[in-house]
């Protein structure tokens, strides 16, 4: 048997659940890159206020970093949803072109003054940074697309909720996920949630049925903290109503997805106890009333297709409280 044949044989044996785990982990990577971009926006916004001294190298390196991170997001998106590749790379090329123009144009003079030189003109470095920030997150138009607008487009592609696929595409994904979990032998746990251990289950699924208590996941425990006391009868009722959620977990991570056909909701969180990296990210359809589901402090962005919400740099207590409130809202 040739090496190629052996590899083919192994890949045929690879359980579908491994693919599910890999996709979930890749989505985490995708979110890390998105977060990196938001940090770059914040850094530029802080520096443009006039308090800092910086030179052209700083702005050029900021532009380069944004282009690099954006490229990583596009790459992740293409791994997650290969069919999105062509359109995203075309849009990415346009942003690279804009970035090149910004570097070469040395500031357009369109923005308001922030740091003036002795003649009352805006310093060219500040003008350039101001233009760069407009490109990041100014008014998004077809002629002048912003990086933030493109990020939203990438997100929508990744969660397969684009203008072409819409709700139907998401329902297809859900049906496929449900079938994958069923066929792979992932046992539906109590509380009406499919549970997947991101690292262990990718290697081998256990034969015996598992309970939520068998999973050592801090964010999952926080999510269920307020509702874990429900009695066995209620749990049975929930089971009979159907399994409507899938939660992929590790010790510090939780990826919670709705499987209900009429309710789009995806929550991603990292609760490692390290404030600088911990976060909660949510995508929900337009009908979801996020104000009622989420505690205060979340940044919410609405698009034509759904809502994004996130909270970054969260303390351990903030993560715990937020997940508890979200869990109560969603799962009670």
């Amino acid at each position, binding site marked *: 048997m040739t090496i190629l044949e052996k590899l083919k044989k192994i890949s045929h044996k690879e359980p579908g659940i491994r693919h599910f785990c890999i996709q979930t982990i890749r989505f985490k990577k995708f979110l890390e890159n998105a977060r990196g971009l938001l940090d770059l926006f914040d850094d530029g916004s802080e520096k443009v206020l006039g308090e800092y*001294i910086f030179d052209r190298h700083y702005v050029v390196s900021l532009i380069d970093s944004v282009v690099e991170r954006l490229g990583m997001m596009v790459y992740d998106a293409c791994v997650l949803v290969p069919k999105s590749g062509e359109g995203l790379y075309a849009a990415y090329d346009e942003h690279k072109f804009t970035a090149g123009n910004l570097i070469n144009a040395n500031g357009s003079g369109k923005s308001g003054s922030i740091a003036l030189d002795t003649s009352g003109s805006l310093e060219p470095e500040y003008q350039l940074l101001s233009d760069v920030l407009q490109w990041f997150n100014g008014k998004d138009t077809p002629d002048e697309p912003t990086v933030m607008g493109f990020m939203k487009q990438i997100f929508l592609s990744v969660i397969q909720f684009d203008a072409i696929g819409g709700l139907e595409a998401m329902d297809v994904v859900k049906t496929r996920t449900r079938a994958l979990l069923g066929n792979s032998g992932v046992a539906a746990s109590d509380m009406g949630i499919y549970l997947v251990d991101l690292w262990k289950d990718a290697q081998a699924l256990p034969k015996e049925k598992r309970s939520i208590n068998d999973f050592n996941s801090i964010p999952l425990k926080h999510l269920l903290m307020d509702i874990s006391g429900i009695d066995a009868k209620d749990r049975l009722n929930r089971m009979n109503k159907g399994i409507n959620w899938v939660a992929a977990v590790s010790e510090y991570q939780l990826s919670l997805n709705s499987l209900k056909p009429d309710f789009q909701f995806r929550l991603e969180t990292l609760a490692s106890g390290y404030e600088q990296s911990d976060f909660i990210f949510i995508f929900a359809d337009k009908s979801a009333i996020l104000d009622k589901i989420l505690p205060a402090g979340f940044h919410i962005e609405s698009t034509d297709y759904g809502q994004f919400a996130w909270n970054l740099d969260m303390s351990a207590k903030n993560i715990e409280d937020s997940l508890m409130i979200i869990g109560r809202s969603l799962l009670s």
Partner: protein
Amino acid sequence: MTKSLEVLLLDDEPIVGRRLKPALDKIGCRVEVFENPKEAVARIDQKEFDIVVTDIRMEEMDGIQVLEHVQKKWPRTKVIIITGYAKMDLAREAMGKGVFDFIAKPFRPDDLRRIIANAAEALGAPIDFSSINDEPVE
């Protein structure tokens, strides 16, 4: 009346000199600004400055060369290096050659003023800049 600190500021990016000079003037420094390292070195040959603040990466001459020149000519002068490239090898090289301190771009004027105050203290000519706020410099 105390003597003003004589400071030479060298950076090939004009914005640095334009924005730092007023910030240092406010703490009583007498600042001469240069964008061309060769012109700065020529001036250093003529005059002993208390403090030389220099960018590390410049076209014709880098900050390490400026540091070496200052030390040969005026061993008492404190040299502070501005770097936008947080490169450990360059930092180590400069530390080995006796640079007084580093500051990485982007930075606030007050960050540099603190380092200048430390250098003044080391020169035996302390300055009081407690009344200076961290306000934007125009």
